[in-house]
């Protein structure tokens, strides 16, 4: 059975996108050609400490995590193993664990501690409370 989310409402953001942020179609992968465009996807407060939340940045699904030490990390939103929703995963300072089959991915370089392919990592930072992801 396949389930589609064609009618999913737009992801809520509490900050308007920066001027000049390109409005693009949403895809599963990074935008073709363009590298390193920063996008405001929301507020840092949207992500509770220790947890992850998913956003769309420049047409790319990203999962952003705020660790308990305050540091921010961002990955592709779908697990490269079987599409699991990584934003629902559990994390610590070293790894992110996908909720579906519990593959763990290192924050250091995105590689898996098990047998799955690596995840894509994206730069993310806090800009006066705004959550900025570069894709």
């Amino acid at each position, binding site marked *: *059975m*396949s*389930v*589609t*989310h*064609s009618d*999913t409402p*737009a*992801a*809520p953001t509490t900050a308007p996108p920066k001027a000049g942020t390109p409005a*693009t*179609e*949403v*895809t*599963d992968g990074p935008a*073709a*050609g363009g590298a390193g465009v920063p996008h405001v996807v929301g507020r840092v*407060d*949207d*992500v*509770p*400490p*220790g*947890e*992850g*939340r*998913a956003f*769309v940045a420049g047409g790319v*699904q990203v*999962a952003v995590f705020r660790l*308990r030490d305050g540091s921010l990390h961002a990955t592709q*939103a*779908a697990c*490269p*193993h*079987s*599409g*699991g*929703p*990584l*934003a*629902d*995963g*559990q*994390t*610590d*300072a*070293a*790894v992110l*664990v996908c*909720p*579906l*089959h*519990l*593959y*763990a991915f290192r924050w250091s370089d995105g590689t898996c*501690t*098990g*047998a799955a*392919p690596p995840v894509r990592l994206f730069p993310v930072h806090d800009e006066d409370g705004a959550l900025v992801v570069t894709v």
Partner: protein
Amino acid sequence: MTAVLGGRPAGVSTLHFAMDDADGVDTRQRLVVVGNGMAGARVVEEVLERGGGEQFAITVFGEEPHGNYNRIMLSHVLAGEEHEDDIVLNSHDWYADQGVTLRAGVRVDRIDTHAKIVYAADGTTTGYDQLVLATGSRSFIPPMTGLYTADEQLLPGVFGFRTIDDTRAMLAAAAEHERAIVVGGGLLGLEAARALQGHGLQVEVVHAGTHLMNQQLSAEAGAILEHSVEALGITVHLATRTTEAIGPDRVRGVVLADGRAIDADMLVIAAGIRPVTEVALLSGLEVERGVVVDDQLRTDDPDVYAVGECAQHRGELYGLVAPVWEQARVLADLLTGTDPDAEYHGSRTATKLKVAGVDVATMGINRPERDTDEFLVISEPRRGVHLSVVVRDDKLIGATLLGDTRKVAFLTQAFDRGTPLPAERIRLLVDLSDGAAEVGVAELPGDSQVCNCNGVTKQALVDTVKAGTTSVGGCMDATRAGKGCGSCKLLVKQVVEWAADGDVTEDASASWYVPGIPLAKPELIAAIRDQQLRSVSAVFTALAPGGEEDAKSKMGLTSLLRLVWGAEYEQENDAKFINDRVHGNIQRDGTFSVVPQMKGGVTTAAQLRTIADVAEKYEVPMIKVTGGQRIDLLGVRKEDLPAMWADLGMPSGYAYGKSMRTVKTCVGTDFCRFGLGDSTQLGIDLETRFQGIESPAKIKMAVVGCPRNCAEAYVKDVGVVAVGNGRWEVYVGGAAGASVRKGDLLATVDSPAAVMQLTGRFVQYYRENASWLERTYDFVPRVGLDQVKAVVLDGSAEVLADLDAGIQRSIDAYTDPWGQDGTQPATPGQFRTALPLVDLPKVPVR
């Protein structure tokens, strides 16, 4: 990597221009696989498993109209042991579901490797960026006169033995005919002969070699096999050929090279296989015996690869499945970029078979080749047993086991791994009691799946050990083996121990409750109590090495803190697994399931109507009655959960947690003619009392009104059975999931109140003492039923009071999570979608 054959530079020469997705143009590379046999389809599977569906638009050409099937099993189909439907590996639907274009029944004629176009026999052309040749082999048909009709077809009654169509034709013919000749005394020929004999045919085998299975066996062993085969009633003609098929309208017999004629109405040709290389030849690729490939399975064109029986690697052709699997893995690593340096270095071949009812295992060579080779033979022709080994420089380089394969375990290990051999060589063949478990493990082929949940093969575990992980837990972490249903853990342990060859390192963490805190459960509980640690982060700070938090320990610690502190536990959402954060069971597409509480499986018309209305309102894709007698609403979007709970107005059924889930009941005395006790009411009471109680693993209960066991109480964590006169039996430690175990009778009591009290004591004892994720069916045998009884039945008044108080504390702390978080989210974005704005990703399924 060895130099690329043919002098062209290595590497992919494809120029790929990504187009804008908005144009609706598929920007993926085009991967074409020529051949839909076991090799071609396996490559596609391995590519998809590595996420290659995102990278490649995949097209597979298959000359046969069928999906992909297991050719190895054809002799079983011929023998009637398997139905042809059972040997299908990937159906047409599978290809469609995976988004793979299958051009079944379309032969490929030629490839233009410059223009990168595939020309098919139906006149179509298909472009590619990367191409894989997996054209396999065909039956070798030795020359003989009269074999073909005027239109170059095989004479009616003559069959090759290679495809399902061959097999079907033979089955049809076998039903009508009486005498068959099989040309070829190798493995396939002997299997065909035995299968046809099973259909009542008189069978004779004609073999050109001087002994049967001459590729694998020595002359002596072949002679013993011949004796065994003839004992089955199959006549064997050796060292002769069929020179003529007697016709003319259909086959009526054969003439042998020595002039003898044999009557027959079926002629089956199983005289070996030849690689199919026409496509490669016509496409200008380098072909010797097979399509020549390098260690990266590349032909002399850098964007064309070859795998399987059509490929010639380092001069070798392989006709066994294990090397094909290895090649497919390497190729998929390369194509997807998962491991750009992956290489295939050839396979050492060992086979273990049952040939015409006789066990045969062979590996390496079967005769000494040098003067210094040691050669040990035990031959018992009358018993049909022939055993031999070849040893060179203290290493096993060959073995043959015929009629008695009990020693295959050790020998395979010695052959594959070069393990030291006993100084008394005779011990290689006799008196080697390595234990049944080890023999079983060694006998497993590398590609056999050890962990079905996570698709981990024996080879994957062996490779993990070889790469330096020598603890059982480490291998399980690295491969995910044993991390699904857990039923394979023992086998995983055996494989790791076998692969590590006695050098298994102890998991220091084996006795720890969770991997991130170096304490066993009792010490951990004591520390939590002593230091008043009420949150998971406080536990990490106080007890973890360096104060480091550990993702994989969080869920177990949350459960433990709830056990210790009840309502006084300080909850932290990030310490909970997603199921517990949103109170639903995560499904493979990232949606959740909603299971309202339905105590004892009893519901009302109003509840059913509400559930139906909610299901319609939220367009629930599947409504399913569960094994636990409840209604499961599957495929619910995370963001819909709170509104659905509110509309349902029913409490959570806890179908997601490591907690007490449900109590199944039969109708007991309400309507049943045979019921001896009111099981329905007792089930409702049990569920009411123990609802939502967290525990080391899920707990399932059942109550039945008589020993007919309609609600399967004998196989539950706690099962209660009415036995008449107001008495109830309480069983513990049963399971009917990944393992099946009948529960142990804990006690027979004489009132529902006593059942409730005993259940509470057992559950609390289990909660306090079981390892994290240890089900009662592992826990009870581990600690022993006597120990369980000694505590929960015969414990001191103080012990029993502690158990009663412990469970009561958790019962008092129960609140319905749907009622809480549905109205007041625990954290910002608690129910925010985790895959926003796009179709959910397709999940590849093996």
